[in-house]
């Protein structure tokens, strides 16, 4: 402590003069590698000559974008407009990166998105993939996904909402913040609802930290329309309004195939027409929820198949029997009832009791 004044007199180093002191390194110290900066900021290779020519195809293959897009194409059935938009975003990020190498500075693109569409059209599935995708494209630093609903953003008493929302946003930084059923944030019937406070903070961060976090809202089209009408600021700050179309019968059939395949089942050849017929009938029914209904149908067919095997006359089964879904497993469904509005759910054992999963929540 003795003579602290003199001994510790390290020269004040021009605090606040604004000059960046780069090239400062400490041997053997805890200096982390600089986090990857978004490529649009200053790019990988800073400057090219103005007359240089860049091979975009080579750039493209170097980033591995094609792999990501191909995987998306292969793993998700249908959704053509969604895939087209993602391909556009990928192209834009690639071009921006190349522009940055020529020294053309661009503000980071606005990538906030809104997914609207019917129930079960893949909104959540695509959002989950979006984080990884944008990370691989070099837009997001970490590429993690934070999924929240109204409960995580809106507080319960005055002064609770702002810290809660900020906390969620901080956690999502470097990745994607996915707000499912976003229209619940705004409750038009209650003026004192704290949801609007949350929306305000969201808007602020979406505007000022667009290179740190990508916000994806999802919800049903009609409800989201109402939501945007009461929050015009939100609508204009979202660059990508993507509508998820309903699936066609062919697509649903493919989806059913894939779901069955993931579960380790196959449809017997003579199940095909029955499956198609089932899907068509299912689509005509109220509360049809696209892929979610298909998932439930496959699950129920599984149950009926298991019961058929267990209760069957011949207790011996082979591998094929265990993995094959027969027409009977589908035909037992209530959809094939002669009178469509059968009032006694569950009369066929494992038939669609209560239709729990098919409700549009």
């Amino acid at each position: 402590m003795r003579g602290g004044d003199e001994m510790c007199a390290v020269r004040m180093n021009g605090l606040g003069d604004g000059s960046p002191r780069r090239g400062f390194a400490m041997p053997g110290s805890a200096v982390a590698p600089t986090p990857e900066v978004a490529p649009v900021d200053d790019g990988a290779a800073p400057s090219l000559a103005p007359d240089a020519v860049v091979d975009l195809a080579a750039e493209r293959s170097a980033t591995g974008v094609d792999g990501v897009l191909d995987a998306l194409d292969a793993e998700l059935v249908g959704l053509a407009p969604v895939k087209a938009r993602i391909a556009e975003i990928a192209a834009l990020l690639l071009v921006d990166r190349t522009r940055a190498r020529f020294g053309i500075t661009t503000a980071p693109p606005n990538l906030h998105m809104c997914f609207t569409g019917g129930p079960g059209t893949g909104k959540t599935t695509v959002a989950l993939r979006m984080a990884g995708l944008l990370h691989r494209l070099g837009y997001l630093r970490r590429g993690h996904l934070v999924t929240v609903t109204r409960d995580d953003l809106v507080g319960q008493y005055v002064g609770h909402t702002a810290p809660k929302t900020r906390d969620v946003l901080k956690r999502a930084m470097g990745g994607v913040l996915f707000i499912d059923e976003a229209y619940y944030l705004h409750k038009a019937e209650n003026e004192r609802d704290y949801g609007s406070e949350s929306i305000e903070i969201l808007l602020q961060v979406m505007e000022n930290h667009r290179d740190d976090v990508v916000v994806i809202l999802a919800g049903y089209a009609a409800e989201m329309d109402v939501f945007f009408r009461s929050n015009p600021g939100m609508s204009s700050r979202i660059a990508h309004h993507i509508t998820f179309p309903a699936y066609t019968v062919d697509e649903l059939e493919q989806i059913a195939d894939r779901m069955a395949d993931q579960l380790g089942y196959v449809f017997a050849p003579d199940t095909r027409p029955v499956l198609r017929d089932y899907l068509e009938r299912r689509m005509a029914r109220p509360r049809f929820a696209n892929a979610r209904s298909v998932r439930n149908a496959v699950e129920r067919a599984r149950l009926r198949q298991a019961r058929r095997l267990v209760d069957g006359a011949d207790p011996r089964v082979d591998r094929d029997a265990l993995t094959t879904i027969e027409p009977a497993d589908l035909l037992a469904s209530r959809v094939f009832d002669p009178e469509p509005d059968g009032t006694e759910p569950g009369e066929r054992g494992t038939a669609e009791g209560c239709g729990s999963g098919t409700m549009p929540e």
Partner: protein
Amino acid sequence: MRITQGTFSHLPDLTDDEITAQIAYCLDNGWPLSVEFTDDPHPRNTYWEMWGLPMFDLADPAGVMLEVDTCRTSHPDCYVKLNAYDARLGRQTTALSFIVQRPEPEPGFRLDRHEGADRRITYTTTSYATGRPQGERYPAT
């Protein structure tokens, strides 16, 4: 007199990029960070004011920098530091702590020597700044 407390304090002040890199290092190690500020930088003043709660579950430095920036703008005339806590069993201590803002005039400390019985000397350091009430110690110039 320049206060030298915590890591890096003998170095020139870190730039925001360097602070971001340090935060990234902490987060990569799984250390949650917290922001603290004070206008009483006495070496024995271990407990600075907390700027919000420690930040858990963060993945990216941007979230921490957001808090650092709001703290720096709300308290431009205070010392602000970042603490990183290592919660691993066996360590359970502050792993890294460094100052991210210091007020422009730093008047330093006065050393009082107090002579007691048998010519025994006890020493007291007093910050010149604490002569003024809290909040007015480092007037923005």
